């Protein structure tokens, strides 16, 4: 996040608080995709991710006056999203149902594509086994490509802790690949 972006965010926040609704649209356009993607990674379906992202933005806009600018707006929004999603996943964890794909009969020409897809699905299921916070850190780093400093600021931990968390998340995935019996029923 450059200081130019931060200044632009600060300006947009001030304009929104002064009642300028065009600032609302600009803020949304800047961050809606990123926040939605974070939410999607937790729930893995479009509708739930949209609901979660909407709740995150409502929470953020309602508390925008209290945003103290100690961190960037991006970090602040990610923090709200991460906490909101982790709470949601914890509440819903007992309701998770395993989704199995019924591939049926397939033609040989698409066999390799399906295998690749299946492998990806399997990996996704493994990632789901990680504790919510560890999973979030891994996703923010690898898929959202946030810096370790940004993730540390979002989660309120040190950079070393975040790096260790990424390592141990990948280590856990390795153990699950080696020994699938370690997998919980999801």
């Amino acid at each position, binding site marked *: 996040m450059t200081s130019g972006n931060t200044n632009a965010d600060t300006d947009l926040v001030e304009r929104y608080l002064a009642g300028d*609704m065009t600032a*609302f*649209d600009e803020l*949304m*356009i800047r961050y*809606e*995709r990123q926040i*939605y*993607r974070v939410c*999607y*990674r937790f729930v893995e379906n*479009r509708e739930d*991710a*949209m609901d979660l*992202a*909407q709740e995150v*933005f*409502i929470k953020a*806009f*309602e508390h925008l006056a209290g945003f103290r600018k100690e961190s960037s707006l991006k970090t602040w929004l990610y923090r709200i999203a991460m906490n909101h999603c982790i709470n949601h996943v914890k509440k819903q964890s007992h309701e998770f149902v395993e989704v199995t794909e019924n591939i049926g009969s397939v033609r040989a020409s698409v066999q390799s594509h399906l295998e690749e897809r299946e492998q*990806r699905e399997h*990996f*996704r299921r493994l*990632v789901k086994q990680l504790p919510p916070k560890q999973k979030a850190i*891994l*996703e923010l780093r*690898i*898929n959202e490509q946030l810096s370790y400093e940004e993730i540390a600021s979002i989660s309120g931990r040190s950079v*070393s802790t975040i*790096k*260790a968390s*990424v*390592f*141990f998340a*990948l*280590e856990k*995935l*390795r153990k699950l690949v080696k020994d699938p019996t370690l997998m919980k029923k999801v």
Partner: protein
Amino acid sequence: MFGHLKAEDFVNLMDGTELSATQRKHIAGCSQCHATWEYMRSAHSEMSSMETDIPEPDWSSFRSSVRDELLSRSIQRQSTVRRWTGWAIRPATAWALSLLLAVGVTTVTVLWKSTPPVPYAAPKPPVVEPAAEVIEAGPEKALFEDVMALGEEQQEQLRRMLESSPSVTYKR
């Protein structure tokens, strides 16, 4: 083998940070660290490939739903504030006043009961100078007739008695 790479070293390596000569030498010779590094690299690329599957929603409708929800919550909040500061202020004031009155009455009662009771002193009867002599007198006419009916000797006795007792009180 000593000098295994730490968690942070693997993560730095994954991010493309150059390892020191010692660490490079170690990872080349240590099968454990080499296997860990190989897995980290493949898991990292596997994770990265997962991101392409995220379906995009209709952003303009998403934005308007957030805006509408914010607006409706703001209206709700305003009406709640108005409810508390508008008509509801009257019952609130009444409550406050009754409470104040109750506290006042209780305080006065407690204070009243806590002061030590003053012993009852019976009022003293008014001091009346005793009359030297009380003569029962009848009506004026009857008295006059009684005096007229007295003999000379009795009249003289009465005159002397009156002269000698100036503090005689006549009671009617």
